[in-house]
């Protein structure tokens, strides 16, 4: 069963790369078909009553460690499978409209299929090592897709940056996995869960070690889900094609970190300090990214920072212990953020790759479907009452309210900022007057792009009420726990305040009325990295290069060759061409040998 979900995208990727790439339409069709089969498999898993008999095989076994390639069939995995394949399928279809003119369309779809395979592998993984393998594969496909337009230096740089920053997190993740194995002696989720449930932490391991291991696992999430301070790669990853931003850098891959945290939550739970770290990093990320988003002008970058901020929310929810809420928000976020990115893609497509919102304006007249779906996405994200984002955000805030009032305040303030910057985006891009001449030539996108938008818009509208949260598990705090209406009232107030504020400021604005360099320049995080990491690294590299040139290359390589050549220069003077000089030397040599063997040795 699980292979039907996992393998089709891999087969499609291999087929397209090896055979089908000259035939664009067939490649596209193969890739979409593979995704559809995966979705069918996921639906079958969803509807089957028991998922006990998923097949697995042993991939490597040494005494004390057995690594299987298998699958988990619990509700968490099935929900995530549905999100990945469902949103993935819509984005596959959308991409055909968006990328149709691209000469490397087949390559794009091959990479997209490779990504689907890796992502499904993460979701299905039944042990940490398998998850890590696919974790790395996802990193690779993300690298390939960000750098899809590798002719553009900025895209190539962004791809490298994403890969390198992710390496840092992955290293922590690997250490976390090794630590988990060292402490509990197993890497399989079900076994681990049993061990933790029955005996807890084995004797001999201090709480500090457990906290370190939990933090190592969280490092993986920090890299993949772009939490502060490893957030720098995600905004730059927007250099990739927009459907990629929607699929990988908004809906699925970046959420893999949160999914992984929910998977290993029973380990994180063993350490209160680790959970605190997770909660605070999530909270800081959410407000940090929301503040930066206030001053960005690139439509995709605003959405990227918004993604960061929402991921911060989810991580924060995990830190509070509210995994159900985190997964709920992950799901609804996947719907509306994929919708927003695809709608942004539709705008970019319609405007011939213009991304600056201050060069748009009044797009609602030219692109009605895109406008309405974007508006629905915005409403869902900002917490318009009774849309999907409202419920999921509400449940996180409610859990935070009962846990930690400071974190709750940060969450509420972030909600206010979210409403503000998203309304700013919508007002500037879609309302007002046309700011540049090009807008007059904007056109609505074809059906292949608008239909996925509409489907996602419907999901964003109703995703909150179809019971996703009850499918995953219990809410951390029951609604009866008190303060429910207070929290709801407060967040609706924040939504209204943020939206009204942005409407008031930006509806008539011709250019950005405020200039906050600190926010516009992303709190100088790139500059700080430059000064703290890149510069020292370059100094070290120069020193090592000097060492390599003068010591390794100079003393060991060039000096050796010079001494051999010099010895040759001296010895060749003996070869003067005079026959009798040779004879004399020869006879002297013979005499010397005779002396040595007959006189010295004989004595």
């Amino acid at each position, binding site marked *: 069963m699980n292979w039907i979900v996992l393998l089709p995208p891999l087969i499609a990727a291999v087929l397209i790369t090896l055979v089908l790439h000259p035939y664009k339409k067939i490649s596209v069709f193969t890739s979409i078909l593979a995704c559809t089969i995966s979705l069918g498999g996921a639906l079958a898993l969803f509807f089957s009553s028991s998922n006990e008999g998923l097949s697995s095989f042993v991939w490597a076994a040494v005494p004390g460690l057995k690594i299987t390639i298998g699958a988990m069939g619990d509700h968490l995995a099935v929900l995530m499978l549905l999100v990945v394949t469902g949103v993935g399928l819509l984005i596959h279809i959308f991409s055909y409209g968006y990328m149709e003119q691209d000469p490397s369309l087949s390559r794009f779809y091959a990479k997209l299929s490779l990504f689907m395979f890796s992502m499904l592998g993460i979701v299905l993984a039944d042990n940490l090592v398998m998850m890590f393998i696919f974790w790395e594969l996802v990193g690779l496909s993300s690298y390939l897709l960000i750098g899809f337009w590798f002719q553009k230096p900025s895209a190539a740089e962004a791809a490298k940056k994403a890969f390198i920053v992710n390496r840092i997190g992955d290293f922590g993740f690997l250490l976390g996995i090794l630590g988990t194995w060292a402490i509990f002696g197993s890497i399989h989720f079900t076994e681990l869960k049993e061990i933790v449930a029955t005996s807890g932490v084995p004797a001999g391991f201090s709480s500090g070690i457990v906290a370190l291991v939990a933090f190592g696992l969280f490092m993986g999430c920090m890299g993949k889900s772009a939490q502060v301070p490893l957030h720098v790669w995600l905004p730059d990853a927007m250099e990739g094609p927009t459907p990629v931003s929607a699929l990988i850098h908004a809906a699925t891959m970046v959420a893999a970190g949160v999914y992984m945290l929910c998977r290993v939550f029973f380990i994180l739970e063993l350490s209160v300090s680790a959970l605190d770290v997770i909660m605070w990093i999530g909270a800081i990320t959410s407000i940090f990214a929301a503040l930066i988003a206030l001053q960005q002008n690139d439509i995709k970058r605003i959405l990227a920072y918004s993604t960061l901020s929402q991921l911060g929310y989810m991580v924060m929810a995990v830190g509070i212990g509210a995994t159900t809420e985190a997964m709920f928000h992950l799901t609804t976020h996947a719907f509306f953020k994929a919708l927003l990115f695809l709608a942004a893609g539709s705008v970019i497509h319609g405007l011939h790759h213009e991304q600056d919102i201050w060069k748009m304006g009044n797009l609602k007249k030219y692109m009605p479907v895109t406008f309405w779906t974007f508006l629905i996405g915005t409403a869902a994200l900002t917490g318009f009452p009774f849309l999907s984002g409202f419920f999921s955000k509400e449940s996180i805030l409610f859990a935070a309210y009962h846990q930690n009032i400071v974190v709750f305040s940060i969450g509420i303030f972030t909600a206010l900022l979210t409403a503000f910057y998203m309304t700013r985006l919508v007002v500037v891009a879609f309302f007002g007057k046309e700011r540049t001449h090009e807008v007059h030539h904007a056109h609505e996108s074809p059906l292949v792009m608008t239909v996925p938008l509409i489907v996602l818009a419907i999901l964003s509208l109703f995703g909150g009420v179809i019971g996703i949260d009850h499918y995953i598990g219990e809410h951390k705090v029951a609604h009866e726990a008190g303060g429910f209406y207070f929290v709801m009232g407060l967040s609706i107030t924040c939504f209204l305040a943020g939206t009204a504020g942005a409407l008031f400021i930006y509806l008539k604005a011709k250019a950005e009325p405020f200039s906050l360099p600190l926010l516009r320049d992303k709190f100088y995080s790139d500059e700080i990295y430059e000064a703290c990491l890149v510069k020292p690294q370059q100094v070290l590299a120069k020193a090592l290069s000097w060492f390599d040139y003068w010591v390794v290359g100079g003393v060991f390589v060039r000096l050796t060759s010079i001494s051999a050549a010099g010895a040759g220069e001296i010895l*060749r*003077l003996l*070869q*003067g*061409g*005079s*026959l*009798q000089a040779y*004879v*004399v030397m020869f*006879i002297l040599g013979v005499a010397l040998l005779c002396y040595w063997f007959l006189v010295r040795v004989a004595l």
Partner: protein
Amino acid sequence: MNWLTEITLNHYLALSGILFMIGMAGVMIRRSILVIYMCLELMLNAANLALVAFNRFSPAARDYDGQIMVFFIITVAAAEVAVGLALIVSLYRLRQTTNVNDLNSLKF
């Protein structure tokens, strides 16, 4: 005066050594390549003489090892003379000289 009346191995070896030294000196100091060549032959024959003498005075002189080896040397020397003289003739035709001081272009 024993050494005047009876010829022993040492006499032969002394003669062989003297012949060898004369040959070697000739090879080192004479300038004509033909003379050098003859001196080389002299050195070979000094060795032959020593071999025959050793065989003659060996306590187990039942076989003819020394003589056989001398025949080998004579044969090889004859072949060598044929090749060497041919080379010298050819060299002379090319350079119009047999003086080794003028034949020194083969160097670095």
